């Protein structure tokens, strides 16, 4: 980690200082619903980044005068723990954190059906436990999962990723060293289904060709991350759905047949909100959860999740 001598950021063969190729992402891992008090929560492990996101709301807004008459206010607070960086950061929020908080909130807003909750607030809290470059992109990726976990209706998840300029080469997903020593940093966040860019910043230098190349590469990278993100949330709610269903089935019944029977009707219901026909797994899950209609609120949220993030539809469609 010591860079007394200048680190070779990228070799002639396009190998970066940590052995990655130009478009290789660092390892990304998510966990959803990990905090008990929060309405929704997630942690992202992205390279050495460790970032927690928690969502509270929709809830009453204080101070009241900030309330919006026609939609919910989306408020975001991005903070870094004092020990998240090499030199201890002072605990008071810096201008950087305030700015990032603002752009993250603005990036989340387009994804959320905020008109459903007028005069209320949806709070998104982000705590960077360890930072390693690209923390704002990792933050928004985690925040989207926390929102989904909170059962907030959304038209899509949000995915962030950064590109950089290392001695003229465009690379994806800068780590700390590359961020500090490279020539440019270009973070974006997108709604992957529609391809809308909801966050775009850059510092350092890129020429127009590099900038465009970076955008194209980023779009691909975001799709890869999107897949992981959706897996994280569908995995969690698939488990919960199973748990809810099991106690309901007092006597073992031939679920196979039941699922087949229900499949047709459920598919049509689903079409209203989603574009493609769900495959077996998705509809089976839904049909199952339909059975335990009266089980509490939790189930409601899990159903919502399935609507928003159709479980593994794309992957299965491909197979």
């Amino acid at each position, binding site marked *: 980690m*010591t860079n007394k001598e200048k680190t070779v950021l990228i070799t002639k063969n396009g190998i970066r200082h940590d052995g990655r190729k130009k478009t290789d992402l660092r390892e990304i891992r998510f*966990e959803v*619903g*990990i*905090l*008990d*008090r*929060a309405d929704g929560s997630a*942690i992202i492990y992205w390279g*050495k980044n*460790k970032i*927690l*996101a*928690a969502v*509270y709301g929709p*809830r009453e807004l204080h101070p009241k005068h900030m309330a919006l008459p026609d939609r919910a206010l989306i408020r975001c*607070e991005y*903070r870094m*723990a*004092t*020990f*998240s*960086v*090499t*030199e*201890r950061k002072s*605990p*008071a929020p810096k201008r950087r954190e305030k700015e990032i908080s603002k752009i993250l909130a603005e990036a989340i807003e387009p994804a959320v059906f905020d008109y459903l909750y007028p005069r209320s607030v949806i*709070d998104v*809290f*982000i*705590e960077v*436990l*360890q*930072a*390693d470059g690209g923390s704002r992109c990792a933050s928004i990726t985690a925040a989207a999962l926390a929102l989904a976990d909170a059962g907030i209706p959304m038209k899509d998840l949000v995915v962030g990723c950064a590109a950089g300029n290392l001695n003229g080469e465009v690379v994806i997903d800068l780590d700390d060293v590359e961020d500090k020593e490279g020539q440019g940093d270009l973070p974006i966040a997108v709604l992957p289904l529609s391809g809308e860019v909801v966050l775009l910043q850059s510092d350092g230098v890129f020429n127009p060709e590099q900038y465009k190349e970076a955008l194209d590469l980023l779009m691909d990278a975001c799709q890869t991350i999107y897949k992981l993100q959706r897996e994280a949330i569908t995995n*969690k709610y698939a*488990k*919960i759905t199973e*748990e809810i269903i099991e106690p309901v089935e007092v006597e073992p019944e031939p679920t196979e047949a039941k699922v087949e029977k229900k499949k047709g009707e459920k598919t049509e219901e689903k079409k209203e909100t989603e574009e493609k026909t769900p495959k077996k797994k998705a509809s089976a899950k839904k049909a199952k959860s339909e059975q335990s209609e009266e089980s509490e609120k939790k189930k409601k949220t899990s159903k919502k999740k399935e609507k928003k993030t159709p479980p593994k539809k794309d992957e299965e469609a491909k197979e």
Partner: protein
Amino acid sequence: MSDKGLISMVEREHINSLLIHGKRIDGRNFDEYRTITAIPNFVPKAEGSAIVKIGRTKVIAGVKASIGEPFEDTPEEGVVTATVELIPLASPDFESGPPREDAIELARVTDRAIRESKCVSQDSLVIIPGKKVWILFIDIYVLDNDGNLFDACELAALTALMHTQLPECKIITNEDGIEDVEVLETKKPIQLDHIPISNTFAKIGTNIIIDPLLKEESIADARLTLSFTEENKICATQKGGSGSFTIDEIKKCIDIASERTKEIRSKLNSIINPEGYPWSEER
């Protein structure tokens, strides 16, 4: 805590009526502690760190170090300070902004236990006596609040310190004859002379329970935190809340805490688990 979560009358009655029958809402005995897990080195960028879980309560502590000058009144000693932040991520009851009195109380009680037990060896902290010492910041963030933040913060601070490594230093004398410090690449664990462990009690009516849940705290009249060293000495005490304890109650708490802290200390090796899972298990 002054930040009380809302609790309904029904629930309040429920907790109370269980207590009358000697029971608690999570089925524990009055003197029974929740499961503790401590995961060290969660943030490798910090000099030392740990996540501590007591039941569903989760806190993270990180230690950062810098070289500075000692306080004038203690020139031969390094500096160890703790801060606690009740970040709004952890609970709907917490608000952002500078630490308020409850966070400051938490920090100061944690600080006191570490300092008064003489936990960190001065040999590890003093570089040039009277001139250069290590200043350790123990920053603690509450991540999920289900009660008993006092014990959680203290244990997180302790576990982080147990896993803190500081760079080795060489004293060099420059041409003017002034001593200076060269920080080397190699790192060395700091030495802990004492291991303080604290136990917190809540008093609800006439009942006293150890390791209160958030719900129990929110209807409690008073709170008592006792820290013990491995020599079974009390190194910090803090009473909180608007209620009171009788002398007999305090003595009883001391007896229980003496036992429980011993138990926790003896299990510390299994409590501290680098492979432990820091978050809520699947429900």
